[in-house]
């Protein structure tokens, strides 16, 4: 009888531990891991901007929420609201690809200069006046 109770308690405890583990795995998972994501598309900053400015609806289907490697020339590097961001040039002077940089790439980004050609990997979030890319890591530059 006693052994039966012990088995039940052990069984219940095991289920509780598994549930707690699953809860933390699902609930506490960080929002995005660029390093672990496979690149969906590689494209130049100019082509990416042209795609969005020509047909935003189609470009949203093609690029938004995809992991993208984008290559382009640096227009400027900014540090606003405690975020490091690299703006890549397109053909137009009014639109850029905005790459919001992850902390792991900040030291490398600090050494970059305007005009330099670089490649970032990140997730595309869509288009305002610029194409917005978040969670970016420096791949080349």
């Amino acid at each position: 009888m006693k052994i039966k109770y012990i088995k039940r308690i052990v069984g219940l405890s095991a289920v509780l531990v598994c549930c707690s583990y699953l809860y933390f795995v699902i609930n506490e998972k960080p929002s995005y891991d660029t390093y672990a994501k496979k690149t969906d598309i590689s494209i130049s900053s100019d082509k990416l901007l042209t795609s969005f400015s020509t047909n935003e609806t189609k470009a949203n289907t093609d690029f938004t929420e995809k992991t993208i490697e984008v290559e382009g020339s640096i227009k400027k590097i900014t540090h606003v609201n405690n975020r490091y961001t690299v703006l890549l040039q397109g053909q137009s002077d009014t639109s850029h690809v905005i790459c919001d940089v992850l902390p792991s790439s900040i030291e490398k980004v600090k050494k970059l200069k305007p005009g330099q050609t670089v490649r970032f990997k990140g997730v595309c979030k869509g288009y305002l006046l610029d194409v917005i890319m978040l969670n970016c890591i420096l791949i080349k530059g």
Partner: protein
Amino acid sequence: MNTIIALIFSFTCFCAFSQDKIIARQGQVSFFSYTSVENIEAANNQVLSIIDLSNGDIAVSMLMRAFVFKKALMEEHFNESYVESDLYPKLEFEGEIVDFEIDATTAQTKMVKGKMTLHGVTREVEVKAQIEPIENAYVLSGEFDVGVSEYEINVPPLLRPNIAKVINVMFRFEYEPYENQ
């Protein structure tokens, strides 16, 4: 929504030839939801805003998917269940800074009035904002509350205890003359 996009683009076209327009491509908008069950916060650091200094007109546009949460599950719920980012990808605001004083050399507190479109619902809003002149431009900041139900955002019954009925929104835009971008 199209009106605001048109306004931003018309601003953009004129900006190249005018020193009256200032732009913030990396404005910050963050929100907080406080409940006894959990606190949820998120920030969007890529908010676009343009001000026409000649008349105080202001336009703001942001991608809902660009809000960053600490946890993936929160981000998923926010985009898929609450604001439905696939259907309504942007929040847009179009309005004016009331009695904007272009020559003020110190910080001024003004009301910003206009129409905000979120989740397909457009409402008149009035927000108190501080406008501080910096070198060649301005910083605009402030906070306001948004009622979740005002924008027809449906929270599933199971998650209602987790989401505050009124969300506190904070914003900060650092503008630059458009020519310097």
